[in-house]
């Protein structure tokens, strides 16, 4: 007769779950070799009769029996290389912008940016298609005749000249996809009741463009931008209008903070459309996150 301790231990073992042949399982993702029939008289082991299949001497994929394979014969030119991860900038021409202004679709008394162009419901962007904003093309550069403060994502030299000739100003500005989604559908974004996101800095391959005074990058030195404006005016042969005594000076020099995406609204604030008010959280960690670049 066993002692009390042994009896207790045995009872415990009986009640506990244990590893047994009935509950042992393989690790997930385990691979098995094909089962072969080893009984007497079986010779082909499930691999068919003769040939490369039975002997395991199949050619590798893409081998064309000694002939130069297609993949080597056709030269590849990678126009669409890395297409899936490239940033896309859908075009909008200067003519189209002028038409929007003529038909009162955008307000010239405010700076024109992604949100004001998309709020016309005539143009739209799609984050799923890697859209990162608008590319202003040169069509209609000769007939452009408005004094505007334009903020877009991609421009050329001629576009800058066409706008600055009329006394306007232009900035190229990077928005990360999350901010862009808030910008191109402001109504839907405010209805969600989420805090206004802070804008990220441009990725490494776009940093050079957005800090270049020749492209009026938003991270460029303002003094260098003034010099570049004069240089461009000399190159294209027009007189640069003086901004110091301009009645529209405040409008033309309005700029957003690099972290800011809406004029007058700071990142971290929450817009309440129902009560027509703005909620400003006071939590210290929250404020630190929304006012710094990490």
């Amino acid at each position, binding site marked *: 007769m066993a002692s009390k301790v042994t009896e207790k231990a045995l009872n415990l073992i009986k009640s506990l779950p244990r590893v047994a042949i009935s509950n042992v399982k393989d690790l997930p993702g385990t691979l098995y070799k094909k089962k072969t029939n080893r009984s007497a008289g079986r010779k082909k082991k499930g691999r068919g009769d003769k040939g490369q299949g039975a002997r395991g001497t199949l050619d590798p994929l893409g081998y064309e029996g000694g002939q130069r394979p297609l993949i080597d014969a056709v030269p590849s030119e990678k126009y669409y290389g890395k297409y899936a991860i490239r940033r896309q900038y859908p075009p909008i021409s200067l003519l189209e912008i002028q*038409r929007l*202004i003529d*038909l009162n679709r955008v307000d010239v008394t405010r700076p024109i940016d992604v949100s004001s162009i998309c709020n016309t419901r005539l143009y739209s962007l799609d984050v799923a298609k890697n859209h990162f904003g608008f590319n202003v093309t040169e069509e209609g550069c000769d007939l452009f005749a408005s004094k505007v403060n334009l903020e877009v994502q991609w421009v050329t030299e001629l576009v800058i000249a066409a706008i600055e000739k009329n006394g306007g100003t232009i900035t190229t500005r990077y928005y990360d996809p999350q901010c862009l989604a808030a910008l191109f559908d402001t109504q839907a974004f405010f209805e969600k009741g989420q805090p206004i996101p802070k804008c990220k800095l441009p990725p490494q391959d776009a940093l050079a463009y957005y800090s270049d005074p020749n492209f009026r990058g938003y991270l460029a030195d303002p003094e260098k931008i003034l010099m570049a404006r004069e240089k461009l005016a000399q190159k294209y042969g027009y007189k640069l209008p003086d901004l110091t005594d301009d009645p529209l000076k405040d409008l033309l020099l309005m700029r957003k903070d690099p972290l800011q995406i809406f004029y007058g609204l700071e990142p971290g604030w929450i817009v309440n459309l129902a009560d027509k008010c703005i909620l400003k959280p006071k*939590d210290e960690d929250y404020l630190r996150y929304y006012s710094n670049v990490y």
Partner: protein
Amino acid sequence: MATFTVSLLRTCNKCRQIIKPSLSFARNTYLNSRLKCEQNVRLLTTAPPPLNNSSLNEENVAEKPDYPTDFEVSYDEFKYVLPLLPRPTVPELPKHATFPTPSGWFPPNEELIAKQTFLIRRTKNHLLPVYPELKRVQVGPYKAIKHSVIIRKIEGDIWALEAELREYLLEKTGLKVIKTQVHEVGRFIRIRGMHRPLVAEFMFERGM
């Protein structure tokens, strides 16, 4: 084995006792224990059981709210939100001193329109209702694209418009034939070919 134990063990919300089934897995014992407690029985999870009856809980709620609620409300700064919202309707046209505008837009000429037997209205965006259309077709072994132009918002004599437009296009393009489709009920005309600029020119000449 582990999943088996978890699915069978229940806790009582009030007394927080674990209701254990017997080793023989008798269903009756489980049901009896459930009846004894007369409480909502929930699955045993990793989350702590909800505390809902003791006086301690009320104090806890007062100490720790669900969300950090310390914020300031500003009604004045809502004026910055208003210009960011889209306009619900297409705005009215501004008063231009001269036409055409810098982008080449001009309003319809009503004197010229009065002379015609038909009318093509502008769209709500103040532009011509002339749209390109594209159809991919398989012609025998070949794949082809059929281009066409559609004119919508037609009022009045649609057949007169079609005859006049076809003559105009024949003259301008020098083609032998221009294929058209007239839809009397849908009030549109479809023209084969990429003739959108010519159609627009025709309509501007007639003051549309």
